[in-house]
């Protein structure tokens, strides 16, 4: 397997001048393509910041971020947009669907940006919405969907373009345990069947159990890293 994420001595500080808050204090990490990795740690440990750095949503203060071998800290805004559009899918804790678009249109959005044709777009989106259990709800707006349904749409949007990497920030935090498990099953299936690499942050032990590899972040540092088989307790 090849490295899909490589971080070296990654540092991120917030604030400036005399008031500096360190969020990441030199994280070094390698994730291979096809991994299903969970990242745990207390609030403020730097999980979201780390995901933002990998996804190119924010620039590090120092250090190296490579995604599929490319140093993304050197990419322009436009090149980063292209990378996110074509190679990375995002799932956010609070769904972050576009409120004025229907479930179908939200899932379709990235494909439109990629310039995929109408017929192919429609086929892929409908198939995926069916897979995530949203058949018949395609024309509903986010406000007309439950939290779990919205997160399913968000997952569909993240994977519809079959990205190499999906970054998920606490994807089950705002859904009930049953829905959370269903979402995890879905992500796991995509990982196994399509080889999509997943890296997600979580507080949920159930999510950690599903991961093949668990990373623990504490005070902006990688405190513990261990490979684990799904179902094994995190230590």
């Amino acid at each position, binding site marked *: 397997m090849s490295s899909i994420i490589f971080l070296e001595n990654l540092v991120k500080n917030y604030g400036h001048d005399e008031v500096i808050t360190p969020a990441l204090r030199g994280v070094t990490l390698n994730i291979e393509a096809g991994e299903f990795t969970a990242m745990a740690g207390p609030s403020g440990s730097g999980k*979201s*910041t780390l995901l*933002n750095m990998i*996804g190119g*949503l*924010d620039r590090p203060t120092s250090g190296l971020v490579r995604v599929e071998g490319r140093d993304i800290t050197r990419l322009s*805004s*436009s090149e980063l*947009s*292209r*990378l*996110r*559009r*074509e190679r990375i899918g*995002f799932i*956010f804790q609070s769904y*972050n669907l*576009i*409120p*004025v*678009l229907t479930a179908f*249109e939200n899932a*379709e*959005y*990235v494909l*439109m*940006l990629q310039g995929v044709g109408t017929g192919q777009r429609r086929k892929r989106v409908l198939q995926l919405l069916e897979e995530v259990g949203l058949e018949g709800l395609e024309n509903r707006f986010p406000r007309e969907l439950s939290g779990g349904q919205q997160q399913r749409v968000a997952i569909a*949007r993240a994977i519809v373009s079959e990205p190499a990497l999906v970054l998920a920030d606490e994807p089950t935090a705002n859904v009930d345990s049953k829905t959370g498990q269903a979402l995890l099953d879905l992500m796991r299936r995509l990982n196994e069947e399509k080889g999509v690499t997943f890296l997600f942050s979580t507080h949920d032990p159930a999510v950690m159990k599903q991961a093949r590899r668990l990373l623990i972040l504490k005070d902006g540092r990688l405190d513990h890293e261990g490979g684990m088989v799904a179902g094994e307790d995190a230590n």
Partner: protein
Amino acid sequence: MIVRLAWRSIWRNRRRTLITVSSIGLGLAFAIFFIGLAEGMYDQSVDQIVRTQAGHITLEHPEYRQAPSVDLWVDEVKDLKTRLDTWPEVEQVKVIILGQGMIRSGSGNVGAALMGVEPSTEADVSPVARNMVKGEYLEDGDGPLVVVGSELAERLRLDLGKKLVITSNDAQGNLVEELCRVKGVFRTGSEELDAYFVQTTLNFARRLFRLPAETATQVGLILKNADDQGEILNRARRELAGRSIRVLPWQMVMPDLASYIKMDRFSNLIFQGLLIFMILFTIFNTILMSVLERGREFALLSALGTEPRQVRLQVLMESGYLGLIGCGLGLFLGGLSVYVVNMLGLDFKSLLGEGVTISGFAISTEIHAKLSPGILLGSAAVVFGATLLLSLIPMRRAGNMPMAEMLR
């Protein structure tokens, strides 16, 4: 998708959008109405005045303008009139003899302008003919008869059939006198006309000033459409190039009136500009607020791989939609109000009284607004263009949203 996003986004806050487009619409409608009203007043004033004087375009001796005098005449005016009458853009050709003289009666004397006209031509177009308060207007075959302004009549105690003597210099510089009688008295509301203006027939004026037959001091062209002035001016200059005639627009014949209109139009535009500026400031605030409120959403679009220029385009389209709807509303309301005032007119008599003058010339208090595609589309284009320009700062903000911070 960006088109759809922009369209749906503006309707997310329906009330705000309705207030914004109403502001644009009403502001534009006011601007169109007031510009249309002012332009209508200018056109109407010019139309009334050029009909009293020497037309939209005046043909005269090349040196007349420097020192107006009856010895500087244009000859062969009959042929000239016949020829110019065939031009389709020309409504009427006026032949005028304009001179100065002393009007004397048993009660005193007053210096006045004396105008010799063709009564049959004037009867249809001249405010003097239309504002007779005593007696009758002149006829082509009249002998030594004049119509005088009401104030002049009062000052010299003139009445219908009364005698008066006109003393002047003829074309050879000799002092001449002619006795004539009052055929009618007019009141236009203009002091310049009512107190110092006497009109008589062309033939009697020629006799008074000892002018040769078929001569006149001025030949005036009244146009069917004042907007054709430039074209007809060039044509007349081209076709009369070989003759000793100077072709002038009314703006050069009556520079005071032209300056007044220019100044008034300028101040009117400043007023309209301020009104639109205030409205645009509100719109800028609305667009900026709308962008700042949706910072998270713009950050999300960027996170999903939307190029910054596409995000900016969405904001531009939202402003464009607001501008289009607002301008559509403004064009409808403004156009309708101008149309109504164009058809029915608006009488300012109660506000302005009867004697409204511009540069000494009386004009009607009933104003008909000017309905012109140029005013409608020009005003709308300015407002629409300004709305798009105003979105530049919000566009920039939307395209540079700090994603990590907004999505946290």
